[in-house]
């Protein structure tokens, strides 16, 4: 991937805008200057022509010779002129003669000519009556044609000079503007670099962005700084959750191993009878059950979480909710009977097919119902309600147990979480059941939520999408 510099891009844009602006301004300025210069040149031409005309005397008689008082004429040596009468006869000409010129149809005209390879500006006055206050009204024979030409080279040189100066000024401006904007951008982007080097330092032992407040001061950086802060927060929380999980998992394992070990060591402490050894071995075997549950739960959770993507339509399996609920109740009836807890269902009679595998639904319901029974006092009742709504169904497991403290409620689905350190131990669980249930329901695109009131009981609510058509059809 090629990397692009925002700074270079911004500087290039600024330079492009400046070049365009400078070119436009220079062009307008030069056009104006050009028309001004040529207007001035034309005025000079007219002035010179008027002088020349005033130096011509009309002939005394008709067809007599014109008199031109050339000795009074003072014009630049580079200027050329030609005076002819109506018949085309030359009356006078400049020292260097004017080459032949194709006369334009208009009697008065300003022409741009190339004479002897050089550019000239020429004023052509045809049928120009001579001005003589003493003379009688002039007949046509007293008119002349005057062509006066002056080289445009000095004007062009002047214009080129101005253009060069303008270009130099623009270039200087451009260079300094580029330099200043480059510096300003480098300076202006420093908070961004600070934020980046700050983010670079984020590590498992270092979770603070020291430049965050500095970054948040800039409107442009605030979204970045905020999202960076949230990212760091999320990462830190995730990392701490994982660390907590490993710590808790290790704790549970060590505790479970400690029990097995102590049972075996007690058995080996002294010589015992065969019956005593048998009893101790049976106890040790029973002690390993918890370790086994723990390992199985952790593996289940790891498997579900690693396969967290929702199943593709071809993998859809579905479970009949009522039948599954009844199966789970039947399986847990001995536990409920032992704890003197009644399990009751309240459901609409029609079949409901939920978009979840039977195994997953069964595991979830077992975990929830088992908890409900274990946390209920003898004589209390657990109710499982099934409701079908459009597109999804709800299964609510409601107990009349001690409830969950509001402070503990947000964490009960966390792995190994215990609102009271004794909860899972006294009830025999390992603290993974609710996490597994949550992971399974989430994987099936459903939700698992809880409402609880201390002293009154808790209600766990599963909501899962349903299959409209029965899969047997």
């Amino acid at each position, binding site marked *: 991937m090629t990397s692009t510099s925002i700074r270079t891009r911004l500087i290039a844009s600024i330079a492009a805008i400046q070049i365009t602006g400078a070119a436009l301004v220079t062009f307008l300025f030069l056009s104006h200057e050009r028309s001004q210069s040529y207007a001035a040149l034309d005025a000079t031409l007219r002035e010179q022509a008027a002088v020349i005309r005033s130096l011509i005397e009309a002939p005394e008689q008709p067809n007599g010779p014109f008199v031109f008082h050339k000795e009074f004429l003072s014009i630049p040596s580079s200027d050329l002129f030609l005076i002819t009468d109506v018949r085309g006869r030359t009356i006078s000409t400049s020292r260097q003669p004017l080459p032949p010129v194709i006369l334009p149809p208009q009697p008065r005209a300003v022409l741009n000519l190339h004479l002897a390879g050089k550019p000239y500006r020429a004023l052509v006055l045809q049928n120009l009556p001579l001005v003589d206050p003493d003379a009688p009204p002039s007949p046509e024979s007293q008119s002349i044609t005057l062509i006066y030409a002056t080289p445009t080279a000095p004007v062009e040189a002047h214009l080129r000079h101005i253009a060069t100066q303008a270009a130099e000024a623009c270039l200087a401006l451009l260079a300094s503007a580029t330099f200043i904007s480059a510096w300003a951008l480098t300076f202006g982007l420093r908070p961004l670099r600070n934020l980046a080097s700050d983010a670079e330092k984020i590590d498992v032992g270092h979770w603070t962005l020291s430049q965050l407040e500095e970054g948040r001061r800039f409107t442009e950086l605030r979204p970045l700084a905020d999202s960076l802060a949230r990212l760091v927060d999320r990462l830190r929380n995730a990392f701490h959750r994982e660390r907590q999980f490993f710590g808790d998992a290790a*704790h549970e394992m060590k505790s479970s191993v400690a029990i097995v070990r*102590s049972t075996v060591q007690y058995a080996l402490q002294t010589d015992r009878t065969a019956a005593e050894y048998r009893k101790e071995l049976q106890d040790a075997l029973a002690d390993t059950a918890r370790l086994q549950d723990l390992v199985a739960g952790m593996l289940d959770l790891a498997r579900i979480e690693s396969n967290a993507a929702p199943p593709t339509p071809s993998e859809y399996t579905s479970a009949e909710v009522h039948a599954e609920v009844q199966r789970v109740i039947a399986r847990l009836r001995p536990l409920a009977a032992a704890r003197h807890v009644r399990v009751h269902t309240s459901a609409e009679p029609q079949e409901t097919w939920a978009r979840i595998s039977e195994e997953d639904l069964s595991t979830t319901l077992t975990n929830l119902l088992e908890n409900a029974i274990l946390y209920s006092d003898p004589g209390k009742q657990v109710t499982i309600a099934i409701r079908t709504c459009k597109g999804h169904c709800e299964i609510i497991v409601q107990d009349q147990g001690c409830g969950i403290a509001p402070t503990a409620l947000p964490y009960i689905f966390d792995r190994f979480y215990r609102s009271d350190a*004794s909860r899972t131990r006294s009830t025999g669980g390992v603290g993974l059941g609710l996490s597994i249930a949550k992971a399974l329901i989430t994987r099936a695109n459903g939700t698992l939520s809880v409402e609880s009131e201390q002293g009154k009981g808790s209600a766990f609510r599963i909501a899962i999408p349903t299959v409209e058509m029965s899969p047997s059809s």
Partner: protein
Amino acid sequence: MKILVIEDEKRLAHNIARSVREACGYAVDLAFDGREGLYLASEGSYDAICLDLMLPGMTGTQVLTELRARKLRTPVLILTARDETTSVVALLNQGADDYLAKPFDLDELKARLQALIRRSQGHADSLLSVGDLEMDVARAIVRRAGAAISLSPMEYRVLEYLMHRPGVVITKAKLLEHLYDFNWEKFSNVVEVYISGLRKKIDAGAGTKLIHTLRGHGYMLRHGAPE
């Protein structure tokens, strides 16, 4: 000797208790949560306490802090599955005497308990002696003038308690309390039975009597006549 085990893993607590009872001959009381543990530790007089850290009701750390705040100097052996060094340092600073990480060896637990009790009584090793009477608490051997003496478990327990406190008058009630678990029925006359049994085995053939009875007060183990 009597110890208190505060541990909410009931299976582990029972295993510790029966192992210590069987191997060391100590009386063992159990508490399955922090509050009960603190109550027992404050009320009963124990020679050592095994304290788990993760307890319902009250954490082990809180129990320990509270015990030390109440000026109870009973040695405390911490049992925990957490093994971060920082928490160990903090625990020792809060007044714990020793620390054992789960899963532990029961033999090690017993050895550490005995060492704690020994040290708290001012002995550096497992060999206790009063005059020419010697007791090796680690191997449960008693000798008088080099000759081994065989004692019943209860006689051994009475003698061990007395040998830890030579020259101190021990009342019958105190002796009883240290010999039995909380849930045993206590009959004061059994103490007299054990003492007379000990007299026969220890003092009978010897020139100097070591076990002294102070009528109306109690018993004392001492080399030489009482002042």
